[in-house]
């Protein structure tokens, strides 16, 4: 028995001293806790926000969108637009270097843009898909050592912000790598160099020898901690400096700790209930009812959005006034108030009085589960609010990936559906581009309003900022009065932040660690 006790003591003696390795990060290191791993490290193929957040620390962009929504120089110091609006010529800063040690030139920048469009490499995701389709990318060319020109199919008012989503990488290194090799060996141009990626565990970066923008921490570690309660525990224990996607039900525990606080921010993701306007749904009683703008307007008064935010999202919120984020919204439009009496009055006026059972019409509201913050309960609450004004609402909660997303993308969800759409702070037109054309991908409601789509023609045919803003405001009024969305809220984001560091979240779900400092 003595031998056994001695053996156990030796084993524990060996093990427990090493628990000192589980200490707070060193002063020159910032550790982030993420819920999911990166989807590869290929700069030309990014389709998730977490991946983009890591990549923007490894790769520079020509210009980048700041926290306030301004589009600022990053690798480039200036740009000019050709008279026909089709060519954007950027001048790179002097003395830039790639992480492979080579000088970063216009040739690298042009290569990066052309590589994304290379059909042989068959990239998918944000740049190759949405960005290039939106700007109608034609080619990129190096005009000189420091000048690179991006050629578009036509003028585009949001091109600069979209070009800012493309990451610049280094030609020599990428030409030597196969597509598979490039997916796990990023050779960047940004403030941090890639050190290693332990799949499913962590991505380690160190400050580049010649960072293009100033940054404070020498090392950044992105730790993958899928379980929300474990992320919270790591934060409270002081092992990570910041966690993303902090669970609302753990806000209290984090705030009650002496080591961390929760930073809540109203995000840019617009959460709404879509009213499908397609003829396929107009044959149902509810589907026919929501074809009328009067009915859609009435339903805006029926849902208590601030109460949903306070009680189900654990954060106060501002109700949307339409499709655009607040800093770019129409200055004179106020969010619809919660007033069920007005809702009932307007429904009566629209020709939908309550019947003997108290029902005006029946309708189905579809939603996916598990994608957005407390989505299922939010949808159930909306259904209840609509029931309360006599709209008998059948809530259909579906599996997100297998059932709901195919329905949404094929524009078959409805007649009402709940969804969120990523937005931006840097341009109202970016947010409005969900409805850039009657057949645009995200026009899931099949809304065909002539007044709205006429506005795009005006905007696309002028460079006059005043006329553009005036037209935007006119379109936003149309959307407010007749739009196909039941306005909800901008989804709040929760970050847990250690008391050891100064770091502020952004509204647009982008994570910048460049300005983070130690307290």
């Amino acid at each position, binding site marked *: 028995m003595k031998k056994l006790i001695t053996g156990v003591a030796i084993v524990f003696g*060996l*093990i*427990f001293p*090493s*628990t000192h*390795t*589980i200490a707070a990060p060193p002063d020159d290191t910032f550790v982030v806790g993420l819920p*999911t*791993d990166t*989807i*590869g490290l*290929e700069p030309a*193929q990014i*389709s998730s926000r977490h991946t983009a957040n890591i990549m923007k620390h490894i790769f520079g962009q020509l210009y980048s969108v700041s926290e306030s929504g301004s589009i600022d120089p990053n690798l480039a110091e200036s740009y000019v637009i050709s008279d026909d609006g089709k060519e954007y010529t950027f001048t790179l800063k002097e003395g830039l270097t790639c992480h492979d040690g080579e000088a970063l030139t216009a040739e690298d920048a042009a290569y990066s843009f052309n590589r994304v469009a290379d059909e042989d490499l*068959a990239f*998918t*995701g*944000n740049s190759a*898909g*949405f960005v290039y*389709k*939106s700007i109608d990318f034609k080619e990129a060319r190096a005009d000189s050592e420091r000048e690179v020109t991006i050629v578009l199919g036509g003028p585009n008012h949001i091109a600069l912000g979209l070009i800012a989503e493309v990451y610049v990488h280094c030609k020599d290194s990428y030409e030597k790598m196969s*597509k*598979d090799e490039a*997916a*796990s060996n990023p050779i960047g141009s940004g403030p941090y160099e890639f050190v290693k990626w*332990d*799949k*499913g*565990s*962590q991505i380690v970066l160190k400050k580049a020898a010649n960072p293009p923008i100033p940054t404070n921490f020498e090392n950044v570690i992105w*730790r*993958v*901690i*899928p*379980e929300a*309660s*474990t992320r919270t*525990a*790591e934060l*409270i*224990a002081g*092992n990570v400096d910041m966690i993303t996607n902090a669970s609302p039900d753990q806000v209290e525990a984090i705030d009650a700790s002496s080591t961390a606080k929760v930073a809540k921010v109203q995000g840019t993701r617009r959460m709404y209930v879509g009213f499908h306007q397609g003829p396929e749904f107009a044959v149902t009683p509810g589907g026919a009812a929501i074809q009328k703008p009067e009915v859609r307007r009435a339903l805006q008064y029926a849902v208590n959005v601030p109460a949903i935010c306070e009680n189900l999202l654990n954060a106060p919120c501002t109700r949307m006034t339409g499709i655009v984020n607040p800093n770019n919204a129409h200055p004179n439009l106020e969010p619809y108030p919660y007033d069920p009496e007005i809702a009932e009055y307007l429904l009566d006026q629209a020709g939908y009085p309550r019947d003997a059972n108290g029902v005006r019409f029946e309708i189905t509201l579809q939603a996916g589960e598990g994608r957005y913050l407390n989505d299922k309960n939010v949808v159930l609450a909306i259904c209840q609010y609509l029931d309360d004004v006599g709209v008998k609402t059948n809530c259909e909660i579906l599996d997100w*990936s*297998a*059932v709901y*997303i*195919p329905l949404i*993308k094929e524009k078959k969800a409805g007649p009402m559906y709940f969804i969120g*759409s*990523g937005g931006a702070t840097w341009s109202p037109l970016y947010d409005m*581009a*969900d409805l850039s054309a009657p*057949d*645009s*991908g*995200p026009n899931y409601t099949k809304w065909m309003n002539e007044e709205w789509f006429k506005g795009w023609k005006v905007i696309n045919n002028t460079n006059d900022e005043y006329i553009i803003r005036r037209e935007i405001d006119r379109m936003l009024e149309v959307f407010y009065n007749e739009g196909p969305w039941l306005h909800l809220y901008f989804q709040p984001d929760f970050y847990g932040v250690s008391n050891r560091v100064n770091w502020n979240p952004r509204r647009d779900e982008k994570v910048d660690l460049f300005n983070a400092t130690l307290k």
Partner: protein
Amino acid sequence: MFFYILRRIPQTVLVIFGVTLVTFIALQIGGDPTYLFVSERASPEEIEETRKMLGFDKPLHIQYLIYLSNLVQLDFGDSLYYRQPALTVILETLPATIELTIFSMLIAIFGSIPFGILAAIYRGKWIDGSLMAIAMLGQSIPSFWLGIMCILYISLNVSWLPISGHVPFLMLIFQGEFIQAFKNLPTTITYLILPSFAVAFYSVSRNARLIRSSMLEVLSQDYVRTARSKGLSEYIVIMKHAMRNAWLPVVTIIGLEFGFVISGVVVVEVIFAWPGLGRTVFDAISNRDIPLVQAAVVVISLFVIVINLITDLVYAKLDPRIKL
């Protein structure tokens, strides 16, 4: 024995074929995964292009035949999520799961044997009652809850062990970095203790009950009485005469359990941020990463088949009456 192993090969091929078919059908029931691989604002044309690029535009039977023909050449396809060969992703995450599995099995075996024997020896006494009560508890507590409680009380409150994470050992061994691997070993073990305990607690409990009942049966046999009457010490009687026979049903269970653990540590891997195969498969299913799920299922199936084979061989070795 050689012929026995040879006879098992066609069975293995058949099992793998069945597994791939069932997995393929199960994954296809979930619908077309293309939508998860396009941007939020993708146009119908872009969705169609991506569908073609991913190969989901072909009829299902063609997709399956392509998969099978590639599989014969040991090409599992590329992970849609990681954009890397699926087999590479599996092999990168497998060592972490093997570490967790082996450590859990060690706890399960070496924890259950003394408990089971003690309970059998002191049958009906308070030791037996206490141990069996703990065993009952162990079989009732879900591993995810146990894991969270361990994090809360052992890691967060008293800071004895790390909350989550992983320090590689086996991976470095496979990469030939032996010095670094053994330098890591003490830290690796500290990171292994809690997740392994959360996985093994159920097995310890079940095996302890099994060993107890098996021992009780053996202890009442004539040859044990004979051994005692020869004047042998109780230690020799238990460990040399009784234990060897009591061990047989336990070997079967442990063999089966190894397969269960290697494929069933998903929840614990998620809670402890353990970058293993279970979590990779879980994520792959959530992300509809069909090639990765298929590759993982084939690899796990092969593991289970090999472990079952080893169990059969060990069983025959322990009990000479069994002929293979």
